């Protein structure tokens, strides 16, 4: 797998302009500064350039044209506007500038000449001098360059050829050479390996990450098991899985065989009303169920809720990966038109053609399923287990959508990133196969994740004020997926990812502390570049772009910390108390049933079950469950109404955002899919770039006020600085704490909790009441701020209880400082 040679081969084939190559070589030494204004990555070579080129700006960029110099390197097509500020030589490298296109994301190259257009392939020859160069990208961007009369013809033709030959025609191996072009230099490798990872989000890679999530959700009764630490139980499951506390690892081990790919039921999330969301693959049917197995399986499946479990079958009503792939390719074709001939669907057939892609239908079915699950969870105190044949596609979509709908934290940038990490990256969505980066596995290709992003966009467009992240963020994520550079997406599961990134080297486990992961093989260290995570946004986007990922002033709705998963201060009237313990229902097509073969071990043939259990579940509480669903389907639309009706009233922040799914309410993500449609450049905005939108202006003003307020109110008091000096050493405390929480030493956990409970300062009761008062949040700028103090000062409670700390957080918060921190900072 030595790819260096491949790259050089390619470059040599290109016959690059020697002078420029040398220039860029010397640039490497001078901290990669190209004399023509392009700041190269370390080791990046400029193969060709053309001056006096104009780039067409999209509506988002302010429309019109900007002129500058066009470059083709062996990693990207770069464009440097004429009067762009001089690049800072000492800044960290950014892979792509605002106007750049990575070669790997180019799908087709089309040139427009006098009265003709031509698709350019590596082998094609040009019989005319192009006037326009159009790059169609995989991420649905269409980038258009216009050659001036002043552009030397030779340069025009050369750069067209160069791009046509260098952009990565989809074939195996091209990805690796691309990665090397981007990240392969010694400097880049070094830079990447020194890169600190984002600590504001949860990566779900280690047991402590999961512990932290359990704490954040206030999920008691669960523990992190490392039974799959070496991927021996299931190759596609992560190392750490969350299972009921009462199930021992030895018991757990026996249950893997009963599930497809060994993907046993695992905990995902707890609703503040105390319901748990789980996911699992389908049951292995041809297996004999030992008496003990059955007991274990039931324990695992019911999790912490003894009474009621609803299995939600994801196969039937949701699109298959093949469906999604077909729909998406139709959508692409529809939105981009035929690339070479520029023939597009006639305008009067647009709507029905859009409908016939079924893309919107599939989005609707995912959102509907997630809404059903969200409504069930809202009912409280039951387990909802998502079941999919392999638990690696639609389960990811539905489980993460449910959390976006129900958990405000997941609507922040950091929270969303953590969610994707939890339910997709670590959970083993097969990004690598589904994205088909190598173009070697067309059968498996299916943009399941893009479908999910569109679902989130639908929610965002229906409830914009309930999100802290923005559609710019979703768009950035959408585009990054198409770039085969990120460890997050270049593997199918944690195991594969670990194999790749052995040079990361260490991981922390509660049992052994820091230790090496899977015997790193240092010999392979330098061949492949270390791949960055997609969440390392500063590597990809300028600060200007990144700043648009979040709303300037976050939503006014408070992001309360979860109260130990028991938001039952107002108990649900429909609470399903009458449930017979051990009832299992299947939710399918909007109705509940309890088919005899739902749980294979309970089906008649084995016979063991009936003896060991009290009685078969009656369907008596089916109506109760259906009522939960009806809440969404029918009567409670005003709920959605009030929950979006803005600032006047405090609402339950965990009330799910239930989307409207009727035809007129589902939109097309035009900013994503239609941004390439050159014939109809979207929303022309009479406001130019130097003329901010009034909302933006107001937001800026509010921000300034906020800052000023912060300054004024903190400067006279001497307390904050002293507290801020508090080191974050308690992180390690937290780790120890969570270690103890695992199965090995169950006893020590309550102890530590008790300790932190014992510590609260005298004023804490006061604070409690003030906290109660904040259920009417408008009286304070935002509840978040008080959380922030938790984040900043919370730990001091354990260390020293200072009576003068008026802003002491509630004990509940003190227990989960880190998670609060992430919810805030996101």
């Amino acid at each position, binding site marked *: 797998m030595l790819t260096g040679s491949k790259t050089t081969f390619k470059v040599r084939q290109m016959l690059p302009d020697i002078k420029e190559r040398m220039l860029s070589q010397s640039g490497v030494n001078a901290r990669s500064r190209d004399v023509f204004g392009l700041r190269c990555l370390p080791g990046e070579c400029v193969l060709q350039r053309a001056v006096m080129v104009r780039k067409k700006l999209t509506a988002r960029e302010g429309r019109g044209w900007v002129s500058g110099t066009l470059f083709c390197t062996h990693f990207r097509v770069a464009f440097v506007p004429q009067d762009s500020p001089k690049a800072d030589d000492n800044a960290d490298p950014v892979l792509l500038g605002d106007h750049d296109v990575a070669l790997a994301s180019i799908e087709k190259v089309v040139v427009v000449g006098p009265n003709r257009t031509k698709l350019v392939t590596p082998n094609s020859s040009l019989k005319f001098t192009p006037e326009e160069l159009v790059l169609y990208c995989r991420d649905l961007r269409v980038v258009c360059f216009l050659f001036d009369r002043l552009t030397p013809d030779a340069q025009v033709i050369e750069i067209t050829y160069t791009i046509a030959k260098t952009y990565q025609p989809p074939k195996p191996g091209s990805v690796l050479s691309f990665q090397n072009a981007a990240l392969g230099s010694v400097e880049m490798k070094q830079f990447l390996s020194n890169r600190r990872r984002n600590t504001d989000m949860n990566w779900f890679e280690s047991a402590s990450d999961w512990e932290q999530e359990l704490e954040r959700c206030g999920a008691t009764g669960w523990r992190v098991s490392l039974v799959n630490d070496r991927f021996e139980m299931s190759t596609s499951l992560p190392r750490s899985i969350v299972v009921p506390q009462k199930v021992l690892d030895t018991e757990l081990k026996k249950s893997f065989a009963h599930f497809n790919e060994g993907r046993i039921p695992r905990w995902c999330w707890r609703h503040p009303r105390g319901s748990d969301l789980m996911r699992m693959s389908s049951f292995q049917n041809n297996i004999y169920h030992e008496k003990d197995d059955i007991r274990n399986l039931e324990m695992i499946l019911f999790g912490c809720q003894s009474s009621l479990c609803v299995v939600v079958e994801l196969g039937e009503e949701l699109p298959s990966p093949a469906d999604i792939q077909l729909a998406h390719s139709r959508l692409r074709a529809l939105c981009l038109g035929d690339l070479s001939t520029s023939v597009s669907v006639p305008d*009067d057939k647009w709507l029905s053609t859009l409908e016939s892609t079924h893309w919107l239908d599939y989005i609707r079915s995912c959102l509907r399923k997630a809404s059903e699950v969200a409504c069930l969870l809202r009912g409280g105190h039951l387990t909802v287990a998502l079941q999919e044949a392999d638990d690696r596609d639609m389960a990811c979509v539905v489980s993460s959508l449910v959390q976006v709908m129900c958990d405000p934290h997941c609507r922040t940038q950091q929270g969303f990133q953590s969610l994707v990490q939890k339910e997709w990256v670590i959970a083993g969505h097969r990004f690598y196969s589904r994205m088909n980066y190598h173009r070697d596995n067309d059968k498996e290709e299916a943009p399941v994740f893009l479908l999910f992003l569109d679902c989130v966009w639908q929610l965002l467009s229906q409830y914009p004020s309930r999100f802290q992240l923005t559609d710019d963020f979703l768009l950035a994520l959408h585009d990054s997926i198409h770039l085969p550079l990120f460890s997050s997406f270049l593997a199918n599961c944690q195991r594969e990812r670990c194999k790749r990134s052995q040079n990361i080297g260490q991981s922390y486990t509660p049992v052994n502390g820091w230790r090496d992961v899977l015997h790193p093989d240092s010999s392979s260290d330098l061949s492949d570049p270390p791949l960055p995570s997609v969440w390392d946004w500063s590597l990809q986007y300028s600060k200007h772009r990144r700043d648009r990922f979040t709303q300037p002033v976050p939503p006014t709705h408070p992001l309360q910390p979860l109260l130990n998963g028991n938001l039952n201060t107002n108990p649900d009237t429909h609470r399903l108390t009458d449930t017979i313990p051990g009832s299992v229902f299947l939710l399918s097509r909007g109705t509940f049933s309890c088919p005899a073969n739902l749980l294979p071990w309970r089906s008649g043939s084995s016979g063991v079950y009936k003896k060991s259990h009290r009685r078969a579940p009656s369907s008596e509480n089916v109506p109760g469950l259906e009522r939960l669903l009806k809440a969404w389907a029918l009567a409670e639309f005003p709920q959605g109404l009030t929950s979006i009706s803005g600032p006047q009233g405090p609402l339950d922040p965990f009330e799910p955002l239930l989307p409207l799914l009727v035809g007129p309410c589902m939109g097309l993500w035009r900013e994503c899919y239609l941004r390439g449609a050159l014939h109809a450049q979207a929303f022309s905005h009479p406001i130019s770039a130097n*003329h901010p939108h009034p909302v933006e202006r107001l937001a800026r003003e509010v921000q300034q006020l906020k800052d000023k307020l912060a300054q*004024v109110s903190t400067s006279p008091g001497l307390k904050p600085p002293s507290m801020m000096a508090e080191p974050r050493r308690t992180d390690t405390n937290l780790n120890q704490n969570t270690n103890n929480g695992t199965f090995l030493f169950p006893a020590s956990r309550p102890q530590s909790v008790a300790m932190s409970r014992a510590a609260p300062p005298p004023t804490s009761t006061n604070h409690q009441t003030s906290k109660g008062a904040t259920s009417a949040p408008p009286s304070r*700028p935002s509840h978040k701020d008080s959380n922030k103090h938790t984040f900043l000062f919370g730990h001091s409670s354990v260390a020293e209880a200072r009576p003068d700390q008026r802003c002491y957080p509630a004990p509940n918060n003190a227990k989960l400082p880190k998670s609060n921190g992430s919810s805030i900072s996101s």
Partner: protein
Amino acid sequence: MASPVSVYNSNALDTHISSTSRESLKMELLADVSLLPGEERIIDKETMYICPFNGAVKGKVLITNYRLYFKSSDADVMLDVPLGAISRVEKMGGASSRGENSYGLDITCKDMRNLRFALKQEGHSRRDIFELLFKFAFPLSHGLPLFAYVTQEKYAENGWAIYKPVEEFRRQGLPNNKWRITFINKNYELCDTYPTVLAVPFKSKEEDLRRVAAFRSRGRIPVLSWIHRENQAVICRCSQPLVGMSGKRNKDDERYLDMIREANDTTKLTIYDARPSVNAVANKATGGGYEGDEYQNAELVFLDIQNIHVMRESLKKLKDIVYPNVEESHWLSSLESTHWLEHVKLVLSGAIQVADKVSSGNSVVIHCSDGWDRTAQLSSLAMLMLDSHYRTLRGFQVLIEKEWISFGHKFASRIGHGDKNHADQDRSPIFVQFIDCVWQMTKQFPTAFEFNERLLLTILDHLYSCCFGTFLYNCESMRDQQEVRLKTVSLWSLVNSKMDMYLNPFYTPESGRVLYPVASMRHLELWVTYYIRWNPRIRQQQSPVEQRYKELLALRDEYLKKLEALELSGSSPSSRLANTPNNPASSTPPQQYTQLQTPL
């Protein structure tokens, strides 16, 4: 002031089902109805409203000389429909009909909904209510005055003063040395459907105008609607020339059009015929037609916009798919099959062509057949694109007064105010379509318009309500005859008395910029908040951006208050305040707060 009006407004626009469960006594269900001055109770009755969304609802219906009002016994469901919005009242079922709620009234409304009431079968219980409703819903058919003549509502503003033709011409820089103002139509003798004040080429003489009038359908000669301040290109409007089967020519008409061209020295005058060319040809059979080759220095462009009948049927189809139930799965193809958006697109793209021509310095003449439907759409939309004045709240009122009302869009015939003849072939939602086009533009240029969606909704509500004189009658001569300005109130009186309600917070004045909306199905949207507003499941959010703006405003006020309080309290901030703000230095993650973003 004007509290009853505000109640009326909020009801008509916002409330289909009032979720506020006001505890009113069952007997006194209708006690809290606030009537307008001059409004009188006619009849009330126990009835059952067959709500398409909630099923049958028991309650009481009240009919006044202005409205139909229904309130359910549990006060959950409420209806408040101006009688003017009713297009048809029918009896449903007979005395012998079986089945629950099969006997009653079926009411078709002009504003995209139907209402059904079930009554008791015993004793002809519906006879009186039917007759009274029929009488007061269609007053003109029963020799009664329209409600606009009955109401005694008073407003601080006088909306009739909003449009003064001479002033508007002066704003455009007229008269000048190329264009003059003529009062030839002072007594509606030249053209009875035109206004009294007209702008015509400076060179044209009064007898020229009369001769041209003879050759234009209904005497609607080409007159100036708008002039470009810099390049002096103009938009003129007229009706079709009376060419007829024999292909008549009229030298005066030809010369007159050439005068329009000469006024700004362009080489070619562009004549936009809004119709499809087939229709234009067909019109020759009835004496009409289009400008042929004999018009030198002119080019003719057909804009392919269909006639009033096609538009009426298209909106009818749209109603079928949005009321009461909206399909989920085949929504887009159903929407496509109504062709409504396609018609909107054609109107818009026609207007874009006009605006583009004018802004590039060429004068244009627009006509269709009679020059009061499609012509009004095209000229007013083009003017809206070209002239930012018309994008202000008052400017938009002027635009409607000028291009629609004064130039004789036949509101009375197209809407059928107070007329029982619901199947009248003259009815057509041309003005609704225009407002839809305006809405499409506000969607695409969210900061370019001073008014908001609410204004558009209010205009459409009162297009039917007959509460104001603004949209009554077909032309100015009729209005003068009926003394509309003296005896009724203008809709703009209501609007301008409460301007705040109709202002777009994002409005950013920017003059001199031409707006070209994207007239593509890919970017047009169905105006859900108008066409589907009766569906409680869809009636959702106000504009999310607007909502966000309000949130920010609230935040700003709050911070300002806090800052003030802090500055007052000086050096000893309360612990509570110290608790709330961010610590600027350490707690703000770099990427979060420092920069700003448009959530558009």
